[in-house]
């Protein structure tokens, strides 16, 4: 088979600091026509820079210093800029991560696609129009003739990504580069988009270079896989080989750090440290500092390619022909320490939320009259037992975060009650609330915006202590601490607790990586000794290996301190690993509620079933069948009448359109709101 794309020894430098960063360092790969090739790696490994180097769209500071990028034998790096414009969009197209940012908001979808068509194909006006409509229909945009004249803001996130794909397909490219195409999308939408990409590939036989960090997506899409680490490819394999026998220690450790149901009672394996700085020259293997099987040779000799099987290659000394005796991998001792089985704490209800409603008024006109409400949270009840974890699962925009914030009274609830240890929080005054604030804290999603860049770590950690504990002391003298126990010692203890060295307290947040920042955010929350932590997607901005570190930390904190978590997430694997109970949310309401095993093994609500089935799976499962959901999440301004889910539900009945279903109970703990199941009379 002839190669479509051939990259040889590509080297890309980024001139950002004093020393250039070798973002891509001697990368070689081939892509065959019609195949899906996945480039897998953590952030900062040079995946996107590889894609941009192929397209020659590097930022100002980037420079390709060596190598060849050949498409059907023609070297792209030798082309003039004008010649390159004939390639982009015509032979190679690209879709980006953020569909919100990659469409021009002041041009209609049709105009943006037309731009591509005019550039590459000489079509008459009518033909152009017909072609645009055809393209949009091809990517599954309903009513394409009308919608092509709409602006991007009238499209939802999934629709925008479809429009982006349509635009990328306009020039009928031979190669589509998809840079994290579904990372910004929800699981159900991700399933739609991935499915669409597969269908299009079957129809047009174009090749796809899929860049992602998500092992699940890779497992669903790719035929061949290259694992990238610190600017170079460390493993090259077919999908089957890769998922059955990952060869490189990095790949192996990556798999081990994935959370999941089977690992519930143990700590996740973590990859220590982080990706090394690419500004240095490497003398040995780039992964050596984080490797759990490192040999002496790894430190001083750069590993070459060694074959594992005929089409499975790896850049690791362990696979050398006359390799030194492999060290026995002491997994149990080294990285997986079984956690103690949780001691049974008293089943004390810590937090009881009843019928919570948060409606945001929509104001219009000169006098700002209220014309409607965004029903972000619409009658949610939940209960958290001390020392346990409740996971709140749902797609973005369903009101998960709003619940978290309104429990903390950061957003005033419209109605309902939030009781913390039998104390009603709603309608408490700011000063009254302050006295009990220390008992519940929050960890945010984005570790980059949750720490004030102008404050040192010690100041960040002290803030909560100063604001809460002092006022507490005035209130009651319950704190049995000796006065000598200074704040600074307390902060040192906190930092040690979250696994950071004590000296970091004198630094500013920008000096830390994402995972370290998240640790600091956790330390900040712990500083006031809370009993309940609301974790608002604490790991979704982090890489898999770092996510494992944070999950381990949270789990050990729960065991040692008896914390209760309200874990807000859309990541089902994390839920399976961490949660005791699950609440599935759809459009401001909880549709299913139950213990983790009940919900994960026997999902009852059609939405839960669809959600669980759309999660990309690593283990290939022939029985698995994705329940495709039609359309997108409706707007919470005008939720559908009756059951909110009925427009997308495959088994909708006439009654679903009329009234919201009452609860159906399956066990003492498992309930759902669906007419498919008999609901008992409310007693």
């Amino acid at each position, binding site marked *: 088979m002839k190669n479509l794309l051939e990259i040889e020894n590509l080297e890309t430098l980024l001139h*950002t*600091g*004093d020393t250039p960063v070798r973002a891509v360092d001697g990368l070689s790969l081939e892509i065959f026509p019609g195949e899906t090739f996945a480039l897998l790696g953590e952030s900062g490994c040079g995946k996107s820079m590889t894609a941009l180097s192929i397209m020659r769209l590097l930022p100002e500071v980037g420079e390709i210093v060596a190598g060849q990028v050949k498409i059907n034998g023609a070297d792209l790096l030798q082309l003039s800029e004008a010649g390159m414009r004939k390639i982009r969009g015509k032979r190679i197209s690209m879709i980006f991560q953020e569909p919100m940012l990659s469409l021009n908001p002041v041009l209609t979808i049709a105009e943006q696609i037309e731009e591509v068509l005019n550039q590459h194909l000489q079509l008459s006006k009518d033909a152009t129009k017909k072609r645009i409509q055809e393209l949009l229909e091809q990517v599954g945009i309903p009513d394409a003739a009308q919608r092509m004249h709409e602006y991007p803001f009238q499209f939802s996130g999934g629709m925008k990504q479809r429009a982006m794909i349509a635009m990328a397909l306009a020039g009928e490219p031979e190669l589509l580069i998809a840079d994290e195409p579904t990372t910004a999308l929800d699981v159900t939408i991700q399933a739609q988009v991935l499915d669409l990409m597969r269908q299009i590939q079957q129809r047009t036989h174009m090749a796809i270079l899929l860049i992602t960090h998500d092992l699940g997506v890779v497992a669903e899409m790719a035929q061949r896989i290259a694992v990238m680490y610190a600017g170079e490819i460390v493993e090259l394999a077919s999908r089957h080989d890769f998922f059955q026998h990952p060869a490189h220690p990095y790949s192996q450790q990556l798999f081990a750090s994935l959370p999941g149901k089977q690992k519930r009672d143990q700590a996740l394996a973590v990859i220590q440290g982080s990706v090394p*700085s690419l*500004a240095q020259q490497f003398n040995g293997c780039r992964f050596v500092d984080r490797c759990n099987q490192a040999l002496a040779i790894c430190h001083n000799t750069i590993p070459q390619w060694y074959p594992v099987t005929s089409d499975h290659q790896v850049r690791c000394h362990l696979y050398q022909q006359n390799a030194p005796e492999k060290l026995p991998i002491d997994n149990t001792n080294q990285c997986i320490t079984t956690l103690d089985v949780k001691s049974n704490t008293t089943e004390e209800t810590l937090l009881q939320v009843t019928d919570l409603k948060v409606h945001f008024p929509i104001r219009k006109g000169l006098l700002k009259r209220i014309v409607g409400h965004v029903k972000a949270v619409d009658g949610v009840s939940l209960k958290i037992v001390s020392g346990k974890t409740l996971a709140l699962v749902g797609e973005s925009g369903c009101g998960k975060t709003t619940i978290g*914030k309104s429990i*903390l009274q*950061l957003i005033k609830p419209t109605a309902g009650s939030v009781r913390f240890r039998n104390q009603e929080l709603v309608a408490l005054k*700011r000063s009254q*609330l*302050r006295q009990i*604030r*220390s008992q*519940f*804290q*929050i960890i*945010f*999603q*984005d570790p980059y*915006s*949750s*720490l*004030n*860049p*102008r*404050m*040192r770590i010690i*100041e960040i950690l002290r*803030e*909560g202590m100063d*604001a*809460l504990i002092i*006022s507490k002391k005035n209130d009651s003298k319950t704190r049995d601490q000796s006065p000598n126990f200074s704040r600074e010692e307390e902060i040192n203890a906190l930092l040690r607790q979250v696994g950071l060295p004590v000296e970091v307290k*004198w630094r*500013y947040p*920008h*000096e*830390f990586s994402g995972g370290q920042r998240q640790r600091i*955010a956790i330390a*900040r*929350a712990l500083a*006031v000794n809370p009993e309940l932590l609301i974790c608002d997607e604490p790991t979704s901005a982090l890489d898999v290996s770092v996510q494992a570190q944070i999950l381990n930390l949270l789990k050990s904190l729960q065991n040692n301190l008896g914390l209760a978590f309200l874990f807000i997430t859309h990541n089902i694997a994390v839920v399976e690993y961490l949660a005791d109970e699950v609440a599935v949310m759809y459009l401001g309401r909880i549709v299913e509620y139950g213990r983790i095993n009940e919900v994960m093994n026997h999902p009852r609500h059609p939405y839960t079933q669809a959600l669980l089935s759309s999660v990309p799976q690593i283990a290939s499962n022939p029985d698995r069948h994705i329940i495709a959901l039609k359309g997108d999440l409706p707007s919470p301004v005008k939720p559908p009448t009756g059951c909110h889910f009925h427009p997308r539900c495959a088994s909708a009945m006439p009654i679903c359109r009329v009234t919201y279903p009452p609860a159906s109970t399956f066990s003492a703990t498992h309930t759902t709101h669906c007419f498919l199941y008999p609901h008992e009379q409310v007693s």
Partner: protein
Amino acid sequence: MPFSPIILWTDALIYLFVGIVLFLIWYVRRNEHLLVPWKRVGHSASGMSALTVLLFFLIVGLLDTIHFRPALDHKAPNGERVYSVEVLSMLDLLVTPLRTNMEKTYSAPLATHLYAKETIELPDGKQIRIFARLVYGGAHLQNPDVDHANDIIWRSAKGLMAGSLVWCLLASGLIIFLSRRHQEKFTQTIATILQRKTEIPWYAILITLLILLLIIGCGIALASHYHVLGTDKVGQDILYQSLKSIRIALVIGTLTTLIMLPFALLLGIMAGYFRGWIDDVIQYTYTTLNSIPSVLLIAAAVLMMQVYIETHSELFETIAARADLRLLFLCIILGVTSWTSLCRLLRGEAMKLRELEYIQAAHAFGVSHWRIITRHILPNVMHIVLIATVMDFSGLVLAEAVLSYVGVGVDPSMMSFGTMINAARLEMAREPMVWWALLSAFVFMFTLVLSANLFADAVQNALDPRRRTLKQSKRFFQKLDNKEQTPSKLSQAIKPTGSSHQP
């Protein structure tokens, strides 16, 4: 006492300002973590060169701030000293010849004759129209047509020599100080400076200083016998006017900012942070203020003030006190009208920041509103404040010119860039054109504003913790450590690469 010190209102405010700055310097020097970013300011070549120039302006402005009334020769009948009604400053004293050597009317820079012909009666009774000789400019020359050029070259050469001599003294003093401090040989220190390897860019500073001293030396050498920048309509030396204008520019630039900042900071952040009715009130206030043409508002206010001053003339001992009160009032009214743009910027920024997660986290800790504003929001908008105030600085100096044009600027007895530019309006329309007044006002203002801009830029770069990457700051800290451990070795305290080439 041969003089009686006078503290005018603006003087008092300037002393207060200087006091605040000194206190801040003292405070920062005591706190290591605050000192570190400020030390980084010292590593920017452009910033330090700009500071050198700025210091010259500041010295002139401060000298001009120390006011007093000299004693007169005669005494009052009861034996008390009588002080002159004229208020002088230290600067006036230093440049007395410039102040007192008045010509009749316009003369070009370094000229020996007037710029306009006038009728002169000859001893024999005949009248001719010629360019008359100046009273002071080049008066020592017997035969100006022949000697003029030579004299100027000779004097400027002497001035340049003197300037470079002073520079040599200063530079060697500095090098001796540096080599003492790092316990190194004299030549070694010179070598490191020449190779631009010092942490503080002494190379750039010394070059700027040399240029500055050469210009000053040249100016001093020529100013005793010539009008270096010419004279204006009433024969006053333009160089003197320019030097006097520096203080007015600095006062208008800094005091107006001082008056404006509390309004803009407090109201802007409050509006963005609290939203709701507070936001509405503040927004309506500044929209209303903005909708009145600011020149008219200022004109109305200044005219009111003028009437007050005139009807209460008994309150003011001297003309200077009157002019000064008018200047202060001008600063206040400029401040009151110019806070709106910064306020709007800050409101937008505060609105963005209040949704950020660290502010949400602070809410979750029950931190008070005041602390959130001062500890979280204020430090994160300081870069906007810094940029806006420096941009405003030049705008305010220009606004003063516009107001002088309308006739509501500083008191006519005060010299400012505004009045100079305003006067140049008519001078440019003359044939032949009088260009030197405008040019010197422009050059002085340009240098002042440019150096202020460059310095503010360096400060901003150094103070923003996000600007520096992890790696670089680590190296920086390591270097500091080295320095503390082995202060004897300069080589360790020296950056491996030029500090001016930072991203």
